């Protein structure tokens, strides 16, 4: 995006016109590229970066009984043209001194990690099967994966309540078939939260996995077989390493929203399911402490974005 300066110190005598031509060509390429990049950059700027700054600003104020319910950061005195900036870091201090928040973060990350793991275990065979099926079947199978998105997410979660509850469909069936005497307690447990997250986010795992698996060169598998590898060896030595980009993409797509998930644990989870989304809700609505809620959100973002940036830079280095 920065202007390209013509390389200096290069032997410029001889054919300056060629260098100039090259220079103009490079410039036009850069212009075109930056034009393409502008729209997504603007989008990110307006809908991610600016809101992030607003939230960050609120996190540095103190809660107050007022409209809006926090203290102003900038105070402008027109008499002597004096601008006062007041930033309080007490919310962040409190966050780190109190192990309640740490517990909530850890518990969210654990729930998200376990769900991501199961999503991968279930999603991989499905994606593999779709990628290896006949091209005519693929469209049908893929649309079956996407189809549930056509109904409301909330309705689908409520449907799980009807399935899992004490006198719900599953328990009624198991009881009537004589497999169990007492209804199984499935709803309002961590189990139902895992189930809800895995069910909801499964397509986000399948789709990126499918694209990488579908692009994979089948001849490599044949070569591996020809060289005497057993099927499981081929899978672990050829298929799996080639699918890593899809696995990483899928895991990130599931893990990140799952950490901040609020709806699924509040509908399917019990009162003892501690997740950061709930803590945020409590700070915002019960304590009416918008600054603290903002600080919790900012720390969550940093905790999530940090490792992701690290992974990305590592995978880039590996590509090079």
């Amino acid at each position: 995006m920065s202007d390209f300066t013509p390389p200096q110190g290069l032997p410029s005598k001889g054919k300056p016109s060629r260098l100039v031509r090259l220079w103009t060509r490079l410039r036009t390429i850069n212009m075109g590229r930056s034009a393409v990049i502008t729209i997504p950059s603007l989008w990110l700027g307006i809908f991610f970066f600016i809101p992030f700054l607003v939230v960050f600003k609120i996190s540095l104020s103190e809660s107050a009984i007022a409209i809006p319910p926090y203290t102003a950061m900038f105070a402008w005195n027109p008499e002597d043209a004096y601008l006062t900036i007041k930033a309080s870091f007490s919310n962040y201090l409190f966050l780190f001194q109190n192990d309640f928040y740490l517990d909530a973060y850890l518990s969210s990350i654990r729930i998200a990690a376990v769900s991501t793991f199961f999503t991968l275990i279930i999603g991989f065979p499905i994606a593999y099967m779709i990628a290896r099926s006949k091209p005519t079947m693929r469209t049908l199978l893929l649309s079956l994966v996407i189809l549930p998105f056509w109904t409301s997410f909330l309705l689908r979660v409520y449907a799980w309540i009807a399935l899992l509850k004490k006198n719900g469909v599953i328990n009624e069936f198991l009881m009537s078939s004589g497999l169990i005497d007492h209804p199984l307690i499935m709803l309002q447990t961590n189990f139902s939260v895992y189930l809800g997250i895995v069910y909801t986010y499964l397509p986000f795992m399948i789709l990126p996995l499918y694209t990488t698996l579908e692009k994979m060169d089948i001849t490599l598998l044949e070569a591996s077989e020809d060289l005497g590898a057993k099927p499981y060896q081929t899978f672990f030595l050829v298929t799996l390493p080639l699918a890593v980009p899809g696995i990483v993409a899928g895991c990130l797509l599931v893990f990140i929203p799952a950490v901040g998930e609020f709806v699924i644990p509040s509908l399917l989870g019990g009162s003892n399911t501690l997740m950061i989304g709930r803590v945020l809700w409590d700070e915002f609505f019960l304590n009416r402490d918008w600054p603290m809620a903002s600080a919790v959100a900012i720390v969550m973002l940093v905790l999530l974005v940090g490792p992701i940036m690290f992974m990305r830079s590592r995978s880039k280095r590996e590509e090079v």
Partner: protein
Amino acid sequence: MKLSHACVSVICAAAISGSVSAEDKVLNIYNWSDYISPGAVKKFEKETGIKVNYDVYDSNEALEAKLMAGSSGYDLVFPSNSFFERQVKVGVYQEIDKSKLSNYHNIDQSLTDKIKNQDIGNKHNVPYTWGTVGIGYNVDMVKKRLGPNFKLDSLDVLFKPEVAAKLQDCGIAVLDSPSEVMSIVNNYIGEDPNSESLSDLKASAKVLASARPYYKYFHSSKYISDLANGDICVALGYNGDILQAKARAKEAGQGVNIAYSIPKEGTVMWFDLMAIPKDAPHPKAAMKYINYILRGDVAASLSNYIFYAVPNTAAMPMLDADVSENKGIYPTQAVKDKLFIQVAHTSKFDRSLTRTWSNIKTGR
């Protein structure tokens, strides 16, 4: 060109007509879900020619967040008294001129006096409904576990671990409202319900924590359908919600029999109030709606439908017998005397309360 011209003229027309009639002909209401009798809004629109935009919320917190953010665009909202107390201090609401409400004399003054300290002289509110927080239970399930002669009129069933343990298998639900539940526990252990002392909070938290293992969940509305379906057998909840569950269970005809009792130890008495935000675009229309709600026949049909009490003397003779004679909706004076009003806490105490509550809920 023609099209754009037409568009411009339409917009102009809308703007002009808007400026002429917007003040009177539109009303934006933000009320609790399932909190009005069917047809009441239509009737109001027909009588006055005012178009009502009716939005709903399901928690005081959601309403408060909207009001505190400013310019909500609503003309009439229905906060509960303890939330209202804090909001009115911030200056969220405008004064209501009672002399312009021809039906205001229908209000039962002995009830509104209870909250006159929360809004000095009740200048900014007109009460909509009132109710209690008490015990809803599945009669047969509880009898089966606690014996046929057990009289469920005490909070022991929720706060004594040895009693709660017997009901664990059929399910106990508790309102997810820290301030209300803690004031009830404070009162149960003989302390001031509105105490802000941390030692009282600790003592009450201990009582709750000891019974916590036998609770199924904390939630502020789920218990309605769960009671009706027999998924839980005891709930600490709002009287009208529990009586709605009872009605639903009766309709379903599965033999689920729900009852409500006001605990003998005393409990929270709350009011939901009608209030007009300061920046309301159509305050005159809001006044008309308040006056309409204060009419005896409208208030009676409201109470008959939602099973909450209305503080309206003109409505009393028009109530259905099963509503007016229901001691869970309209308790006797002796029971009323044991009820207390919950007041707003300081932010500092709210923080401790929320933290304690989170710890109890997550069993930490």
